């Protein structure tokens, strides 16, 4: 009977331009199996990933080798069963970081007042460096290719109304809210007709104690 493949699901898993090659071993793969990894820019020739030769783990970090996010890449893996056999190379689909990376959820600070809430968004950082070796955020990268927007969907517990507002800046304020009321919702980054993972928030406006004084 045909043996189950030694390697399956060879793909790039990419979040915020951290590009990890992952694969799965077959059902009958021996625990002593080791793996070799190679990568290439589309249109060029294969190269060994030196840190991922004869490895036992099922992943390999190729972030540095695929850091030009406007290029296209391939990676491939083969299995070696000591004193037995070597599998064929199994290749990934073509990988295009700019299009294929998933943008994670942003970090958000909120400053509630009596009748408003201020939101301060921090877009996710990437492993990529810009001028003066500054760490780039996903906003730095996509701003050169498209208009970046921040979308807030807010739900008012008191009126049970949910509505959406799209903002241009990372800092914005939602005003004219009700005092001492809970608001929850999501904040996304919108880029290249796509949307990041959502940041979920739950915030309560301050009570209006001014009539006490």
């Amino acid at each position, binding site marked *: 009977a045909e043996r189950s493949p030694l390697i399956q699901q060879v793909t790039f898993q990419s979040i915020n331009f951290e590009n990890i090659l992952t694969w799965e071993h077959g059902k009958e793969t021996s625990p002593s199996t080791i793996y070799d990894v190679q990568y*290439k820019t589309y*249109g*060029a*020739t294969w190269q060994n990933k030196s840190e991922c030769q004869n490895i036992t783990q099922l992943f390999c970090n190729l972030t540095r080798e695929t850091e030009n996010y406007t290029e296209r890449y*391939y990676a491939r893996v083969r299995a070696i069963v000591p004193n037995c056999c070597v599998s064929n190379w199994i*290749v990934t*689909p073509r990988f*295009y970081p700019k299009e294929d990376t998933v943008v994670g959820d942003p970090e958000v600070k909120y400053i509630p007042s009596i009748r408003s809430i201020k939101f301060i968004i921090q877009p996710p950082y990437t492993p990529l460096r810009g001028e003066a070796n500054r760490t780039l955020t996903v906003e730095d990268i996509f701003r050169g*290719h498209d208009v970046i927007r921040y979308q807030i969907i807010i739900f008012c517990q008191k009126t049970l109304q949910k509505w959406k507002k799209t903002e241009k800046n990372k800092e914005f304020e939602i005003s004219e809210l009700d005092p001492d009321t809970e608001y929850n919702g999501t904040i996304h980054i919108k880029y290249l*007709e796509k949307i990041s993972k959502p940041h979920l928030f739950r915030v309560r406006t301050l009570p209006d104690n001014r009539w006490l004084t």
Partner: protein
Amino acid sequence: LKQLHFGHCVVSMDMYEIRKGFGEIKEMTQAQDQYTSIRLLHRSYSLQDTKTEDRCCFFHYLLKFYLANVFNQCQANSNFHQRRVSRIANNFLSIKKELTLCDTVTTCPCGKEAIHRYEQILSRFERMESHSAALKALGELDILLDWIDKTE
């Protein structure tokens, strides 16, 4: 809608329809391309880096190349694939018709650079077996769309 300005002439491209059509066949098409050491639309002949006055002609060449040499070679697969290729091809034709109108409004000069760049792409294409070459060119459509996006 992406608008390309060539002199007084404006060509609009429904990038959404084209990217949607291509997105649905991209993985299947690229997976059939076994020659991953060859790239037709090479970065050194990109549209956005072409001299401004040569862009109109180079772009016209690229449209005609895809219409005449690529899409009709890639229709055989499944009905699903055929319909997506038709979506892309008819949008390319719509753009080419606008560009042809441009020729009457403004000149679309074909300088040496435009011709040289196109010939580089065509010669790589012709060195391959025709169906494999057409499949590779179709699989590189996202490269062409990126060039168009980056062309001011």
